């Protein structure tokens, strides 16, 4: 059908991009590259400037300063029309007075392609998005998932150099979102068009992207593979935003973060005596019923069953809260009020002075708040 040869991947390069709206700086000095044929995710909370970056690449927004390159050619001052990007909007933005096939054909008909070619291309794309039976429907006769597939077919029709997706699953419910995500992954494997995906959903970014650009308050916090971003967060913000973590406050002693009588490794890069925070993933907390070498005691405050695993909220001797996740078959002896022994082998430590995810409190993705 629509083979890879039709759309050779096109790298995007963004250099020192700034965007000011009045006194508000939405995007501050953003630089990154999207590799040919890959999916790059711009990940960040709402208001982090990620959509503005995407809109500037599309030409829908004018950068205050900085440069945008595609295929090694500068695009900073090109019009939207000249850029030939495919853009998928969060709320679909289908033409409400046009049928599905008229929507998909729009990008071809404004470029005055012959009708027979248009028909052929529309047919191909409707097959690709599995909507051949819906060609004469109007957008309001389709479900949310179907609408977004039409929007994708419409964006792909004029064979764009790059595909820009602005929270494409944001307006859909959880089930459809999952389905469509997997489907987009397959589609990308098939087409190989260079894609830039804006999302606030870390799972979406981790699942779909080859590279993740984590943004926060208009700045790039980290650029890396999903593994790098997850395992080696460069900043406290990334540690808090990508995946959930507990935060333990203490100070640096011999390359460890010490809190109370206990310490956790991972602060070798910090200055002795400095106050520091250790970010610990719930699955990096080992919970035993008997004391181990170097383990610390904790009281079980809550056990929440999440299906095949459980989230255990633990209180440490110095009153800090730690969250662990463990498989349900390892829950023996771990019950409300019991004392357990935890082993914190992996932690990522940062100076306390550096900014973090959400003020003094850290909220993980499932809504559990760990107090400092």
């Amino acid at each position, binding site marked *: 059908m629509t083979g890879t040869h039709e759309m050779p991947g096109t790298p995007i390069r963004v250099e020192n991009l700034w965007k000011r709206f009045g006194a508000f700086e939405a995007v501050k000095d953003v630089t990154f590259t999207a590799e040919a044929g890959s999916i790059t995710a711009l990940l960040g909370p709402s208001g982090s400037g990620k959509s503005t970056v995407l809109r500037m690449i599309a030409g829908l927004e004018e950068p205050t300063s900085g440069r945008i390159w595609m295929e090694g050619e500068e695009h900073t001052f090109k019009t939207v029309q000249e850029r030939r990007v495919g853009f998928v909007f969060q709320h679909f933005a289908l033409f409400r007075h046009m049928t599905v096939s008229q929507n998909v054909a729009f990008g071809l008909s404004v470029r005055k392609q012959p009708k027979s070619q248009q028909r052929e291309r529309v047919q191909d794309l409707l097959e690709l998005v599995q909507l051949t039976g819906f060609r004469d429907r109007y957008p309001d006769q389709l479900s949310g998932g179907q609408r977004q597939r039409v929007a994708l077919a419409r*964006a792909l029709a004029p064979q764009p150099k790059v595909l820009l997706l602005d929270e494409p699953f944001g307006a859909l419910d959880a089930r459809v979102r999952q389905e469509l995500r997997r489907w987009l992954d397959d589609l990308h494997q098939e087409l190989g068009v260079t894609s830039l995906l804006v999302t606030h959903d870390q799972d979406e970014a981790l699942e779909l992207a080859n590279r993740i650009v984590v943004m926060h308050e208009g700045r790039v916090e980290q650029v890396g593979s999903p593994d790098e971003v997850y395992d080696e967060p460069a900043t406290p913000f990334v540690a808090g935003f990508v995946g959930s973590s507990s935060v333990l406050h203490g100070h640096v002693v011999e390359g460890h973060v010490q809190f109370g009588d206990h310490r956790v490794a991972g602060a070798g890069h910090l200055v002795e005596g400095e106050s520091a925070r250790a970010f610990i993933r719930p699955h990096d907390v080992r919970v035993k019923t008997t004391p181990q070498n170097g383990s610390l005691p904790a009281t079980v405050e809550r056990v929440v069953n999440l299906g095949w695993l459980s989230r255990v909220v633990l209180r440490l001797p110095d009153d800090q809260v730690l969250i662990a996740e463990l498989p349900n078959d390892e829950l023996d002896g771990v019950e409300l009020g019991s004392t357990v022994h935890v082993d914190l082998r992996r932690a990522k430590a940062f100076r306390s002075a550096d900014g973090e995810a959400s003020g003094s409190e850290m909220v993980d993705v499932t809504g559990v708040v760990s107090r400092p």
Partner: protein
Amino acid sequence: MSRPGELRVPVFPSGTRRRLVHGGFIAIALLYVGILVIAPLIGIAWAVFQAGWSTIVSTLRQPDVQHAFYLTGVITVITVIVTSIFGVIVAIVIARDHFPGRALMSALVDLPLAVSPVIVGLMAVVLFGLGGWFEPWFTSQGIRILFALPSMVLVTIFICIPFVIREVVPVLQEVGITEEEAARTLGASSLQTFFRVTLKNIRWGLLYGIALTTARSIGEIGAVLIVSGQITGQTETATLYVLRAFDQFQDDPGFVVALTLALVSIVLLVLIETFKRRQERMQRT
């Protein structure tokens, strides 16, 4: 339910009283609309019927009458074209752009609704009449504004400015700009985006505004009366003809022209309702 000492206040009157009150309101509403709207319409129709078929035919064959209808038509067509084109442009600016003075512009657009047409006519006289600001230039160019078609069109346009704008602005705000952005990313030029996306989305609101404009400009008399000079066969519109007919005790031809105008208004009313429904239906989706 109520404890002793607690005051019970009935929110609604009890059954029969409520029905009586309700029925009373319906009766008042029917009488009000009936007496003020339906009765005059039937009155005119009755008067024309009394005058008979031959009067209708002879009136409509009068060159003065034909010219009056023709002139009303010309003024209406020009007014509709001008207020539609500029109205859509102004509506887009008000709905989409944020600039200092936008609120003032939005308020100014409504001004013609607040000013009496007679005053609009006088303003035109001040500008274009003998000794008016623009009079010397137009006279030197040999262009006649006052007591001629240009001033009549001008005042009608002024009076009809708000209709298209007022109908189109909310529609534009409702549909938003993402469809237009989508069109642009798909390679559409500004003109293609306007004609294929924006105009399609606002079409029912625009037609509604046009229907209101048409009705208003056909019925306009106050401003036109002042600037036209009422020259029979030259600057006399249909409404001015009716006015003169009654002045000169030619009631029957007056009734015929008046009924014709009333019938046109009824057709417009039906169109207006249709457009309004279509627009509302589109906004729901």
